[in-house]
């Protein structure tokens, strides 16, 4: 049996269901609204696993599901060496979100990571601690800033309402997901000109480690063919 992991709720689930529907595969939740069980119609040998988008990378990497739908950002953040564990099969054209580095609009002297580095050095000298950047994407942000040659910063963990941390003075800058940039603007933040860390969208992934029988392999090939994703 091929296990397909999809988002268990919200717009991401609806969009995923529509995307499969367009390709002749009907996904549905079964039982009550609160029960996380689902069904696949239009192809035999595939079962549905409803997951939070955040858990999908781990399930794919562990081989507990064969296919899964989740954002590029989550795969890159949660799976080191992700290329060895999963393979992107199709970009699905929704769930667009960019991971960006943003600073207060009032910082008219800061437009590039280069400026951020200089500001961080001066900030540390003036305040006695490193310039704080609030994020939940620690690995991606750290790699990006190392690549950009930014020093004298510290990441502070923020699992939600990250845009508010600057006004609350628990961080000086943020790195977060944005789709339209409206929340950033409402919080008087601006994206650095070279501050795009990752462009993400909902993507169908195949686990490279999940076990497959010969029958599974045939089902997988048919499914991917139907999805136009082989």
């Amino acid at each position, binding site marked *: 049996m091929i296990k397909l992991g999809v988002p268990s709720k919200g717009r991401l689930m609806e969009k995923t269901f529509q995307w499969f529907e367009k390709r002749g595969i009907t996904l549905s939740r079964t039982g009550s609204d609160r029960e996380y069980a689902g069904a696949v119609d239009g192809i035999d040998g595939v079962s549905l696993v409803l997951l939070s988008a955040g858990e999908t990378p781990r399930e794919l990497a562990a081989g507990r599901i064969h296919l899964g739908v989740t954002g590029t950002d989550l795969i890159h953040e949660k799976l*080191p*060496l992700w290329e060895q564990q999963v393979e992107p099969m199709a970009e699905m054209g929704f769930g667009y979100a960019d991971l960006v580095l943003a600073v*207060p*609009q*009032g*910082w*008219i*002297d800061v*437009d*590039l990571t*280069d*400026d951020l*580095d*200089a*500001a961080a*050095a*001066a*900030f540390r000298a*003036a*305040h006695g*601690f*490193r*310039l704080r950047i609030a994020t939940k994407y620690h*690995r991606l942000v*750290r790699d990006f*800033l*190392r690549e950009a*040659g930014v*020093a*004298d*910063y*510290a*990441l502070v963990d923020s699992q939600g309402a990250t845009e508010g941390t*600057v*006004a609350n*003075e628990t*961080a*000086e800058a943020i790195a977060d997901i944005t789709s339209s940039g409206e929340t950033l603007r409402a*919080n*008087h*933040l601006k994206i650095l*000109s070279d501050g795009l860390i990752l462009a993400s969208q909902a993507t169908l992934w195949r686990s490279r480690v999940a076990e497959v029988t010969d029958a599974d392999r045939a089902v997988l090939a048919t499914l991917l063919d139907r999805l136009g994703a082989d």
Partner: protein
Amino acid sequence: MTLARQRAHALRDSFVAAGAQAVEPPILQPADLLLDLYGEDIRARAYVTSDALRGEQMLRPDFTVPVVQMHMSNGAEPARYTYAGEVFRRQEEDPDRANEYLQVGYEVFDRTDPAAADAEVFALIADAISTLSLRAATGDIGVLMAAVDGLDTSERRKAALRRHIWRPRRFRALLDRFSGRSDVPETRAALLAGEAQTDAPLTGLRSQAEIDARIAALHADAAEPPLSGAQMDCFDALLNVRETLPFALAQMHNLCVDLPAIRPAVKRVDARAEALSARGVDVDNLEFEASFGRTSMEYYDGFVFGFYAEQRPDLPPIASGGRYDALTRRLGSGQEIPAVGAVIRPGLLVELEATP
């Protein structure tokens, strides 16, 4: 007991016999200090955990910082320390690299004769791993620092270069900018022309005064003449020095004519070469590379060295070390003591000895 552990203890015992005091810093180290010293690079490499009482702790990613701390708070001078134990490094890129491995170290705190102390550590380590034929590489971060100090430019530019000496790419970008080889970014030009404005209220801790100070600094920097082509050529020549030690010294002495500021640092390399020779090291065949050590830990600020297995380029250095006077300044709250040390990885040693 595993072979690696037996070897680690034997090496430590040999360092005790050489006059070092054996020490055993705790495995759990307060994270705030290490993070403040090294920033996010160390967090990326260290396992961080926490409890409600002591806050964030790290599984020790190396021994040097705890040994320096211990020495600065209650050590008598001069002192020599040795230790053997596990260090822990997160490995997220390469699954073949160990995330827990043994290190044996030897650290010298002695202000009488730095060149002799450098040679003592190098010779002791070289001797301890002489069962293998490894390639030794050496360098000196102090020469690069002196070259930056001697550039004919503003103190602010020198500070920026010193800060990025361990990030070669960033360092190069700064040099290009300060010498006028790269263009001023558009937004920077607009800012300098007074065209950058905003109606947004300023949020956060970074104050308007800090922003104004940076803009003033950018104006001052824009008025600064570019680094001369001649100085840049000398600087590039220095970065490219890679020879056996006598030839490297000859090249650096030649460069002293145009970069006189590096003379004291080059003289220290002279003195070290003599001290190494006196210890029986074959300096005529010892490699010296001016850029060596620039991508390793930020605390080395003088002599740096590493021993590599040439037939195994996949392996990290089997032993490595260097001088870290600046670290003792940072941790000594006002005091400092010249310090030099090195570590061996006994696990790699026994692995390589077992391969024909």
